[in-house]
Every structure is written in structure tokens, then in C-alpha cells.
């Protein structure tokens, strides 16, 4: 029975559990074994036993920054080493209520700052397709675990692309819902106006299933709304009458192999009855600069609480300044320190208008570009990432090159709109992701379109050994 589960989606396993052919406890135990055998450094913590109440669905891998009561939750950072929260994130509690148990905590770029999972305080994660390459980030552990079959499904967070880009690099499905669809309460914060929780799964149906349980208005998160009408499982097999606007295909950094797979996908869309047209997002090129001012600015405040006073390791010789400086210097990695400095600078007196103020205006422009596009088309599509998975160490010395990994993914969080990445093919043996974005709260339509396209693509995903 056991390795049979490896080939099943969560929806398929759920059917078996419901039919009594499989118990949730057996499923938990199987996946626990798989997770414990992970060799990619995708996990920072794995459940050490099957819970007494194993729920009703297969267990889930949860990105480290989701607070789970009593379980190490460190956001991939040494500054929270050993921290076990006294409470559980609402999104995880929603899953628990739906009968899903926590399988393990996955590795990530520290405080969600990164695009390769090389910024983790606990070592990088390897891409299961090629272990000399990165899985993407910041939800690298979650993506790698799903791709490698060491988790049946996973949740991650997406601020500038941190679900979609690793999904693309690992050949799995990843979705960032509309800002406010899922509660942020209990998600260790990076950038408050951008962070969203979302699914990383084997297929689009599993993503829909997961999102349907995650979403909801939470009284503990004043920015949450849920998805009006909830989320239904997709069933579409055709794309008749739907209009797809493609952008960014002439960016210089776009790898030819990636472009080729995306073009092939566009042809499939037309075969399925959809219309494809070129669109322009004139301000999309300012997405990275705007994002890399706004996100660090918010992060500089969100990370100010890590000072060793109330939780986490405490360093320093007793003087207050020494306590702050040593705790934070020793606890935070280089990229985190870099972004805190950028963010502090951008907010400082005399510079606020020039940087943060201006970036927020650019953000509005980008949102307007997308809104204008949605007057003409139903979906905005593009490659998810300009490249396939790059090698470990390739971009670590060049932060700007690393930042450009997010080129296609940052406009959506800036505009607060949802987007999904589905694997659409291989280039040089490595997965290519196709991104579909829609207006706010259009998750159902995005999932339907993705479902139809996925079926047509027929991506054979799991590079399991």
C-alpha cells in the first residue's frame, strides 16, 4: 500500500480515506516516514509520532514561519532558535478543523527574505530535480518536499513570489491568493501589506482543496476578508471564450528554453478555445524597485521585536545596547540585516517621500496597469520565473541578480491580486512554470482555467527516487 500513496494526489487519498480503504493514521504514518527520510534539508522539524487524533485528510507540511503551538517555529532564523509559540496560526487551525494534521515544518529563507532558500539560518535546501540547484524561495522547503514526495501537500507564504517561484523551479503547483483571502494571524510577518498564505501541491485540484480550507475572515486579522463565495473544486476542461493577456516575453533575462515552454502553453490555450493577445504593463518594470523599498521598510518594523528580551536567544553582556546589537547581529543573517538597513533608510526622516512614499505611488500605478489589463482580458499570463532553477551559490554574491528572480511575480502582491503557477514543461530537464493572474477574488476562475490547462499539458511531475 505504502508507496502507492506516493503516486496519489491528496484528493485521491481523501477519497480512499472517506471510503474506509485507508485510515488517516496510516496516511500520517506513511508521510511521516517519507518526511523523516528527506535528504534535501527541506524539513526543520518532523512530527515524531502519529497524533492520537489523526484527522480526516493526509497531513500537511507547513513553512517554518507558521506558528504552531509547542512546535519549533523559527521562520528559518537563528534569532528564533528554540522558540515554541504559545498559540497556533489561524490558517493552520483552519486546516486542523478540516481534519488536516501538521506533518512537519519546512525550511525557508530566513523571515521569507530570499528567492533560493540559501538565506536560511539552517542551511540551504536542494532542488529534487537536480541537487546542485536551488529549489527557489522563500518557500523552498515546502516546494521541494511536495516535488520530492516527502509531503503530500504544503503551505507556504508569498510576498513577492515566494510560493510561485519555488513552485515553478520545482515543478509543482503554487498559488498566492488575493490579499486578505487567508488570515495572517500567526504567520511570522515579513511585509504586512504583501504577505499571503497559499498552497503548494501536486495538482490544481489539491490547491483548490487546500485553499478552500485555508480561506476565511478572521477576527484576529483586521486585513482578512476570506474569499466571497468560498472556493469550489475546479472542473473546467476547456477555455472557450476566455481571453489571456501575455506580457514580459521580450525581457532580456528570459531564458530561451523557458520562453519556448511558455509559447507552447499559449498555443495550448488557443487549442482549448482561449484567446491570446499581447498586453503591456508599462510600470511592471518598476515592480522590483518598488517592492524592494516597500517590503524591507515594513520588515524593518516587523523585525524590531526580535531583541532577546521576551523570547528567543539573548546575547550581550547586560548593557541594553550590547543586548540589542549582539542578539540581533548574531541572530539575523546577512540578507535580513541588509533588508532591515534598506528599510530603515527608506523610512528615515528626509528620505520617506523619496523612497517609501514614491514606491507606494508606483505600487498604485502597477495596480492600475493590471486593472486596465483586466478590462480587456480575463487573465494576465507570463512565465513565473525568467529562468529554470539556478545553481546553488550562483547568485548569492549578487543580491540584485537574486532580486530579479522575482521579476514576473512581484506585480501581483503589489496589486493585491491572486496568481497561480503551474508546471508547463521542462527546459534542459528542469521545470518551467506558467503564471496565471486574475483580478481580486477571481480564484475560482483562475483555478478552473489552470485545471483545464494542466490537463492539456499533462506534466509528469514527481522526480522521486
Amino acid at each position: 500500500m505504502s508507496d502507492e500513496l506516493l503516486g496519489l494526489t491528496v484528493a485521491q487519498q481523501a477519497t480512499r480515506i472517506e471510503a474506509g480503504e485507508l485510515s488517516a493514521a496510516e496516511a500520517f504514518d506513511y508521510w511521516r516516514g517519507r518526511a523523516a527520510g528527506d535528504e534535501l534539508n527541506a524539513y526543520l522539524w518532523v512530527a515524531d509520532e502519529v497524533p492520537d487524533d489523526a484527522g480526516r485528510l493526509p497531513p500537511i507540511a507547513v513553512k517554518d514561519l507558521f506558528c504552531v503551538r509547542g512546535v519549533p517555529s523559527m521562520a528559518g532564523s537563528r534569532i528564533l532558535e528554540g522558540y515554541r509559540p504559545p498559540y497556533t496560526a489561524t490558517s493552520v487551525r483552519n486546516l486542523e478543523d478540516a481534519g488536516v494534521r501538521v506533518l512537519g515544518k519546512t525550511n525557508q529563507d530566513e523571515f521569507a527574505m530570499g528567492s533560493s532558500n540559501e538565506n536560511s539560518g539552517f542551511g540551504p535546501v536542494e532542488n529534487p530535480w537536480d541537487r546542485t540547484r536551488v529549489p527557489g524561495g522563500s518557500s523552498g522547503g515546502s516546494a521541494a518536499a511536495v516535488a520530492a514526495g516527502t509531503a503530500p501537500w504544503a503551505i507556504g507564504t508569498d510576498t513577492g513570489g515566494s510560493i510561485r517561484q519555488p513552485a515553478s523551479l520545482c515543478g509543482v503547483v503554487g498559488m498566492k491568493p488575493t490579499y486578505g483571502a487567508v488570515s495572517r494571524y500567526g504567520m511570522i510577518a515579513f511585509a504586512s501589506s504583501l504577505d499571503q498564505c497559499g498552497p503548494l501541491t501536486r495538482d490544481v485540484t489539491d490547491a483548490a482543496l487546500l485553499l478552500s480550507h485555508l480561506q476565511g475572515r478572521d477576527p484576529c486579522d483586521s486585513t482578512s476578508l476570506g474569499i466571497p463565495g468560498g472556493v469550489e473544486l475546479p472542473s473546467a476542461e476547456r477555455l472557450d471564450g476566455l481571453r489571456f493577456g501575455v506580457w514580459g516575453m521580450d525581457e532580456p533575462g528570459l531564458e530561451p528554453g523557458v520562453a519556448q515552454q511558455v509559447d507552447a502553453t499559449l498555443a495550448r490555450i488557443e487549442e482549448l478555445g482561449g484567446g491570446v493577445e499581447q498586453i503591456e504593463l508599462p510600470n511592471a518594470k518598476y515592480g522590483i524597485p518598488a517592492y524592494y523599498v516597500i517590503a524591507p521598510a515594513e520588515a524593518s518594523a516587523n523585525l524590531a521585536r526580535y531583541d532577546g528580551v521576551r523570547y528567543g536567544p539573548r546575547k550581550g553582556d547586560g548593557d541594553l545596547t550590547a543586548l540589542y546589537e549582539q542578539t540581533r547581529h548574531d541572530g539575523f543573517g546577512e540578507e535580513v540585516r541588509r533588508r532591515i538597513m534598506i528599510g530603515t533608510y527608506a523610512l528615515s526622516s528626509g528620505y520617506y517621500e523619496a523612497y517609501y512614499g514614491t514606491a507606494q505611488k508606483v505600487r498604485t500605478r502597477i495596480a492600475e496597469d493590471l486593472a486596465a489589463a483586466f478590462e480587456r482580458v480575463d487573465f494576465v499570463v507570463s512565465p513565473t520565473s525568467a529562468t529554470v532553477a539556478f545553481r546553488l551559490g550562483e547568485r548569492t554574491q549578487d543580491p540584485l541578480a537574486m532580486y530579479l528572480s522575482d521579476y514576473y511575480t512581484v506585480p501581483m502582491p503589489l496589486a493585491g491580486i491572486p496568481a497561480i503557477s503551474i508546471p508547463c514543461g521542462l527546459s534542459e530537464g528542469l521545470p518551467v512554470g506558467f503564471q496565471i493572474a486574475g483580478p481580486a477574488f477571481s480564484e475560482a476562475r483562475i483555478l478552473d482555467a489552470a485545471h483545464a490547462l494542466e490537463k492539456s499539458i499533462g506534466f509528469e511531475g514527481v522526480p522521486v527516487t
Partner: protein
Amino acid sequence: MTEPEARVYEPVIGVEIHVQLRTQTKMFCGCALSFGEEPNTYVCPICLGHPGTLPVTNAEAVHFALMIAMAFDCDIAPRSIFHRKNYFYPDLPKGYQISQYDLPLARNGRLGDVRIHRVHMEEDAAKLIHAGRSGRIHGAETSVVDFNRGGTPLVEIVTEPDLRSPHEAAEFGRLLQATLRRLGVSDVNMEEGSLRVDANVSIRPAGTATLGTKAELKNMNSFRFLERGIAAEIGRQERIVHAGGQVEQETLHYDPQTGNLTSLRSKEEAHDYRYFPEPDLPPVAPTEAMLKRAREALPELPAARADRLERDLELPAETARLLAFRFELGDFFESAVEAAGNGHVRALANWMTNELAARIGDADPAGTSLEPSALAQLVAMVEAKQVSASAAKEVLDVLLEEGGDPVAVVEAKGLGRAESGELEAIVERAIADNPDAVEKIRSGKTQAIGAIVGAVMRETKGRADGGEVQRMISERIGAG
């Protein structure tokens, strides 16, 4: 060209007040408020700034803040937002305070003669306790933090620099305190920290309009100390200017025991708070329903009540003020006036502010056994000379303790006014018993009458009216 020493300087003072609201729970989480409880027992992950937590705005705090803004006739912003005020200190768990910056809840109000610049909402910091000789940070070996207070809702009220003397500032502070107490939004207890007053003080040549450099006096524990502290600061600034120097912008602490002013922070150390809009909270956009609810919750405020009592009931200003500022006394008084059918208003007011206030201290008269109607009746009896003032005081004591009807008490204790015939006989006897006193009076030492009056009062057990007794004695002596 006038020499600096020869100029007269006028003080220019504004105040910044922080008020802790008496809501059920903290500003952004569900913890109950507390004072003096065991440390770190009224806390939760949110007010401790644990990773992943988020604030949620307290609706009752917004309601109270709206009431305050309306009490000051402010313009209420149709949309105000929260900002993060960023700095590092152990009493600030998130490393930022959620406050309001350039879009505050309300602006442009007035209380008495003082313009209110703005009213905004924010959360209180936790409490730092320094273990050392003085309890202050200098010389302390360790410091510990109690987060019970952290997150308590605060309203910050900033005035324009309209005050012109330390006394005015203290009086304004008292009016503000009485007003907020009447609104029921805060305990406004300066010793407990539910009311904190800072003063911004500067001086300028009398008659000029530009503002001088201001110094900030932080957090004095009483209005008396506020007045003294401001006076000391004005003196300090005057000495600097008269010596030809410049006043520096700084923050000072006034020690009321020593009268010393110590610098806490100078301008160079002033923080850049890197304010930006709080992304975790939506704007505060009061609805019609919220505004209506706040408006309807406004009681008659002290200033207006004092005016009305002075005007309509013709009470002296000081009496009116006292009854207005201590609204429980005022409420009791007005019930008594109503029971008295509006008779003897002056006398009733005097009994309230003298005899009753002296007996109950700060307590609420409604908490005693005395009924407003009983007081009204007692006063009427005194005015009708049915009972002497001193006997009435005894009756009052009984009524406060046991309640009841003054007529019954008077009868039960035999405190009825001494009848003329009975009194004349007692007066005769007292005159006869005190021939020396009579001699002295006749020879011009009129104070000696006191001994005879005293004898009469003792014999009548205070049921006679002292003034009348004295008159009778004078007549008898003069006549005889």
C-alpha cells in the same frame, strides 16, 4: 535698543496629556486592564509582541475617544489612520508603538479658554522598574519589565500654547481632569498614571507674537507639582535669557522635593521615529451610528454646568465650580434642589460644599445613607429656625450613617429648637452665674460675651442658635 535684562518676559505654555481609557480590554488585544497586579499576569501573545501576532482595534476605545473629541468640540476626521512610531526600548515589545501621526482622530477643539490642537489614540508602553537606590534609571543595576500596562488604550490630547502662567496651566489641568472624569472615560488618577501631564514651556518678550524655544517638562504627579515645575522652568529660562544666553530645546524632569530640574534628553538625541501607516489596521472611519452614540453619551460637562449653576441658580462662582467639578456632589445637590421645590438653594449649596463635603471627603454622597430629600428638608428646618445650625450638624451625622427622616431624628434626640421662654430662663441663669464676664462686657471688653454664650449653648445642648443667644445676652446686659 533695550538690554535683555530690562525686558519683561511672558511665559507661553502648552500641555500634552495622556489619558488611560477605562475600557474593558486593551487597545489592540483582549487582555483586561489592571493596576498594581502581579507583574506579567495581564498579558497575551499580542501585547507581548510575539512573532506572528496582529493588533485589532478596540471599538470601545474609539467610542471613548470620540466622546472626548466631541466634549472639546473638535473637528472629527472622517477617516483617520494608525501609524507605527518606531524606536527600541524594552518597554515597547514590538519595537514600535501603534499611534496616530498626521491623520489623527480629531483636531481644532477648545476647552475653556484653551484651544485643543489635536486628539489621537495610541497604546501605552509597558512599565520598566529599575532596581537601585532612587528607583530611577541612573545608578540602577538591573531593570525589569512588567507588561501588564503595555497595550492599555491611551488618548493623547495636545493643546495650543495658550496658557500664560503656571497657575493657569494647573487650573486648566484640573478642568480637563474633571471633564474627563465626568465623561466616565478614565479614572484620571495622576498618582496611578491614568492621567499624565507634560508641559511645553517657553518665554518671549511680553507683547511679541513669535514663539521662543520650548522645553518639555515630563510627567508631573499632581497639579500642584505641575504649577511649581512650570514656575521653576520659567525662572530657569529667564535667568538664561537675562544672562544673554539661548534656551536649548530639551526634555526635563522636575523633582518636587528638591525643586531641581534635570535634563533627560537634548535636541541632538531626539528620535527619528520613521513613521509610516500601520498596514495591519484599516482606517478609523466613524459611521453616523458611531457619532450619534458618542454624542448621546455626552453628559453635561463641568464648565457648562458651573456656568449654569452660577447663572440659573445664582450661586457664587467658587461654589458653582466645586459642585460642577465634583459631579457626584453636583448630582446630589441638584436632586436636593428639586426635592426642596427650588427653595433655599444658596443654603443648600453651602451645606453641600461645607458640612457635607467635609464629612464625606472624596466619596460619592449617593453611597451614604443620606437622601437628597432628607438634606433638603433639614436645610429647610434650619432656615425656618426649627432647629439650630449646630443641632442640624448632629442630625446630618445621623442621617449620613443611618438614613431616615430629619424630623424624626430631631424628635428622637430631643434636638428641637429651644423655645424662647425656656431660653430666656437659661440666659438669665447664665448671666447671673457669670458676673465677672458681665463686668468685662460692660467695661467694653465685648469678647467676654463668649463665655456666657458658651454656658447657654452647653445647657441647651446646642439647640439654641448661637447668634440669637448672643443677641439676647447683649440685650439683657444692656438693659439690666
